[in-house]
């Protein structure tokens, strides 16, 4: 009986130590890429943050750890901490992280000036290469920055450059929508309509184009055309450009369309 109890004690001791070793291994000793993945997938949890802290302590030049740790802070509106981490990632590997930081400054902070500065610096580091920060053409993003700054002439130049980079049939249709919006702001309503139409040549479901055209036709005094387009905008609103995280600069809403429709009637 005594031997049996001893065996049970030894087995439990081994099992409990094994449990502890497994936890310590996955948190502090496994290959850094494996731990990065675990921490990335539990984004925002204290465990994730602790694992990134350990990774940064063990590999002070691991820029991805700083970058990924920043994401949860920025998503929660804790920008002082988030950008402190992101700045460190950029400092360690500018080519890899400048695009994301510029993208974040544009979409999360609407800090157009500093976003442009990041995109321009990235561009200068990668000559003869069209960068795609966070999957979007750098000139499209720079166009959005100028649109945000209300520098519509410069925005037109960048959106056109984006269309040239990507080719007419492959570019983001919102390049055309933005071109239409810029021409509208500059008072060139006929040109605005033709730019909105370029988006509709790619697909019929662009409510932003119909809405923009309705406004431009109203300015030109063509009420019937304006009514026709506002109806199309209403019917295609399901396809509008939106994002779960932030409102886009050219985002439209059904309520605005309905308000405009009432003005026309």
């Amino acid at each position, binding site marked *: 009986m005594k031997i049996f109890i001893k065996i049970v*004690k030894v087995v439990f001791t081994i099992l409990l*130590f094994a449990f502890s070793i497994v936890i310590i291994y996955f948190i502090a000793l496994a290959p850094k890429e494996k731990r990065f993945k675990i921490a990335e997938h539990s984004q*925002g949890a204290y465990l994730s943050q602790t694992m990134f802290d350990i990774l940064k302590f063990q590999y002070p030049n691991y820029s991805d750890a700083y970058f990924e740790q920043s994401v949860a802070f920025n998503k929660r509106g804790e920008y002082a901490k988030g950008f402190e981490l992101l700045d460190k990632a950029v400092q360690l590997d500018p080519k890899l992280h400048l695009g994301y930081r510029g993208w974040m400054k544009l979409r999360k902070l609407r800090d157009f000036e500093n976003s442009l500065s990041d995109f321009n610096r990235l561009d200068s580091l990668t000559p003869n290469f069209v960068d795609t920060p966070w999957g979007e053409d750098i000139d499209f993003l720079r166009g959005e920055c100028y649109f945000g700054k209300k520098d519509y002439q410069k925005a037109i130049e960048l959106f056109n450059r984006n269309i040239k980079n990507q080719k007419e049939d492959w570019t983001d249709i919102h390049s055309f929508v933005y071109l239409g919006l810029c021409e509208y702001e500059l008072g060139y309503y006929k040109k605005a309509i033709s730019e909105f139409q370029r988006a509709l040549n790619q697909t019929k479901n662009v409510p932003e184009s119909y809405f923009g055209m309705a406004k431009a036709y109203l300015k030109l005094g063509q009420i019937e055309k304006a009514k026709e387009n506002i109806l199309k905008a209403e019917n295609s609103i399901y396809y509008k450009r939106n994002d779960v995280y932030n409102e886009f600069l050219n985002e439209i809403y059904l309520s605005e369309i309905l308000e405009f429709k009432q003005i026309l009637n």
Partner: protein
Amino acid sequence: MLLSFLLAITLAIWVYYQITYNIGDIAFDKNIDNSEFIVCNEDRITQYYSVGANYQGGEKTIKKELNELINSLNFNESGLITYRFIVNCKSNAGRFRVKMVNSDLKENSFKSNNIKQIQESIKNLNGWKAGEWKNESLDSYYVLNFKIQNGKIKDIF
């Protein structure tokens, strides 16, 4: 065996704590939070982007509805005032926390009277829409930024 047991139990409790709690969680604080604002499930408050919590008509509409406030408030510095709060399953906003940064994204503070006025205005907005998952309304955290430039609120997003 006692040593291995203590080590394992300590690690298990620590891991449980580390997995359960998230950065940015807002626990009820009786000193600053309104006790009439109730969440449906204290253990399951998600992020707005996971369940689609939003303001009807978007931030554009908030800007319109707060137009009077935007024009009346003056600030001495530029930067961002960021409110993080809960939109509960009944589509009400509460349990506000605020973070402030200057134009260089370093921690900062703005006039406390202005901060309170904006907070009250957000609370009084009536277009909040609770997030949903599988036809169930859920509580979620929302983030709303006020961009301050040249002494005025320049943008809300």
